[in-house]
């Protein structure tokens, strides 16, 4: 199997889908001439030309709206946000037009658009440029939210997202673009709404996704294993729709759940997971569900405070020990 970087995997997905379907095009800031702020669209302008790869002004509301309109009349746009922080400027287009058009037009219009770009904190980018916003998108009915954690999933899920007839929020990470991983040979897709058990375990279930899964949760699971606590780690891959049954099945086995996410605690994705698990597998729980999130503050710029605010291996270990009643 070939080994590629996360950005190459995304690039392949877009390239293959553009070859497969001439309605697919890419639009965003610096995606064409500069080959992408993070080089995800490297070479695409050269290959597909300026009618399929569009540079835009710094006007997110405008080009997000163009994406929605283009999707309504039959194209399949990929709208890149340089980071998801800037999508807040376009939130009205996404939450009101993209998400609701199909419903409000009585099914007359579909909006097969993909909004993609990096989300979450990188390093020292301060409060307005470090946000994990999956919860506020998953909150809106009509949007699907996809958050791959590795190159294989990134490629397979982006291809599925492009083919989906609904608006899909596709959140990557600046610090994952260089991550390398094996991907299957040739054409493949991964369905939305299907999670993956990335580590088998018996003592606790940890649900985690995207960057924190790789950089925090799996490392914590290794440390816990040294202490004899075997964590089962689930990567849902898609936040909405969520693979509930996979989580329920795991909790029925381990009787304990910790959710690790980079977003804030209040009304976070973990809050919803906690509710669903409490409601559906209550009688299997041996401890209240624990969550590890970013602290409930704007992310500080200062490095020490930034580290203190984000989820960490230590915080995950502490949460797991709480639910397993070990001290």
């Amino acid at each position, binding site marked *: 199997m070939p080994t590629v970087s996360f950005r190459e995997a995304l690039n392949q997905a877009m390239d293959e889908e553009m070859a497969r379907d001439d309605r697919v095009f890419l639009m965003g800031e610096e995606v064409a001439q500069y080959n992408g702020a993070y080089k995800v669209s490297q070479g695409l302008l050269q290959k597909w030309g300026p009618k399929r790869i569009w540079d835009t002004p710094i006007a997110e509301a405008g080009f997000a709206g163009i994406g929605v309109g283009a999707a309504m009349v039959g194209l399949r746009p990929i709208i890149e946000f340089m980071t998801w922080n800037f999508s807040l400027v376009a939130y009205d287009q996404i939450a009101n037009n993209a998400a609701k058009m199909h419903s409000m037009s009585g099914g007359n219009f579909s909006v097969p658009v993909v909004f993609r770009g990096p989300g979450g904190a990188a390093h020292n980018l301060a409060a307005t440029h470090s946000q994990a916003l999956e919860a506020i998108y998953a909150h809106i009915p009509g949007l699907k939210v996809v958050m791959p954690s590795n190159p294989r999933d990134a490629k397979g899920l982006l291809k599925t997202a492009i083919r989906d007839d609904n608006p899909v929020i596709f959140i990557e990470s600046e610090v994952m673009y260089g991550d390398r991983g094996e991907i299957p040979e040739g054409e493949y897709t991964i369905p939305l709404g299907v999670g993956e058990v990335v580590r088998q375990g018996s003592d606790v279930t940890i649900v985690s996704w995207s960057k924190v899964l790789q950089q925090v949760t799996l490392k914590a699971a290794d440390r816990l294993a040294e202490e004899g606590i075997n964590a089962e780690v689930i990567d849902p891959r898609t936040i909405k729709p969520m693979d509930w049954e996979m989580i329920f099945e795991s909790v029925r086995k381990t009787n304990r759940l910790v959710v690790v996410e980079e977003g804030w605690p209040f009304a976070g994705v973990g809050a919803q997971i906690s509710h669903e698990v409490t409601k559906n597998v209550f*009688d*299997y*729980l*041996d*401890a209240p569900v624990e969550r590890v999130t970013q602290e409930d503050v704007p992310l500080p710029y200062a490095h020490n405070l930034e580290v203190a605010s984000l989820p960490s291996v230590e915080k995950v270990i502490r949460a797991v020990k709480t639910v397993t*009643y070990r*001290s």
Partner: protein
Amino acid sequence: MATKVAMPKLSDTMTEGVILKWRYKEGDKVKQGDTLVEIESDKADMELEAFDTGVLRKIFVPEGGKAAIGAPIAIIADANEDIQSLLKDTAPAKPPAQTPPVAARVPAPPAPAPLPTAPPAAPGDGRVKASPLAKRLAVENHIELRSVAGSGPQGRVVKRDIEQFLAAPRSPFAHAPSPIVEGSSRDVELSPIRKTIAKRMTESKQTAPHFYVTVEVDMEPAIAFREQLNKVYESKISFTDILVKACATTLMKHPLVNGSFLGDAMRQYGYAHVAVAVALDEGLVTPVLRNCEQKGIARISEELKDMVERARHRKLKPEEYQGGTFTISNLGMFGVDEFIAIINPPEGAILAVGAISEKPVVRNGQIAVGRAMRITLSCDHRIMDGAVAARFLQDLKAHLENPVSLVSIE
């Protein structure tokens, strides 16, 4: 967080406990799950685990001292925590100098449980804290959550506590028989259950003046009734099941039989908790079927099967073989015609049941082959007289000979 350690309720009849040994002294650090103290109840010596981690700041009851159930015996808190408020509202403990135990004044075995089901006693606010999983496991394994020491925060019962509880030897029946060398003799130490039987039966026979009344019951109707029932119910109904229901129904009309002698008073029960004697290799146990007056025969049958099964696997909990108001002992399956039983204190009566056997009977002036059973009631003369017992048996016989009267048709 500062917490009081309370005297736990370790048996059905326990009202107070004696501190045998503190495993820690004041000022020692204790960890949740450590054995904190050894306590003697009226039944056994038990170890009490610490529910919280901290420092043993105060011991209220010294070794040899007594405390009532629920009374504080110690405080566990952080090293520097202010425990003044806890100290203030704690009454001084009884000194080790012991008042004569209740049992010595009342010439009866341990006092029976109060009329309503005994109130639960648990540390803290009295509510048993348990994880949802632990609750489910407790139900599935027929465990009373109160009897499980919780190791989670604030004594929460969690999965591992249930697992440990199930893994621990559940009853004191542990003496496996081995062959005696021919021509020799040997002394075998009594198992705890044998000791209990020896003590209680001696007490019963020495303190309760027994008298016995026997009747013969025509069992043809009950046999037909059982055959009809077993066409309807998949799990077979036994004669014992029918007897339990018949006794419960009859007991409710004869409170003098359904009672206990208390010295200057007699207690009459407004419910029929019927104990059924089950022979095990280690000795007799009497699982108690509660509130049989409210239960149908099928339910009684189901519960009895379950309890007998668990009794055989030593899975019965103390509260499941305590608290009966009446006992049935059936030796019919051994072909015994009739026998007399010793009252199971603090109950007032016990019914000894013989085999159903073919007998010549007179029907419509003709001698025919009938099937009959002899039952003998042993009674505590202190609370009832012969006529009371006879009327009880008359009623019981009437129910058994007209068993449809045991079926609720409302």
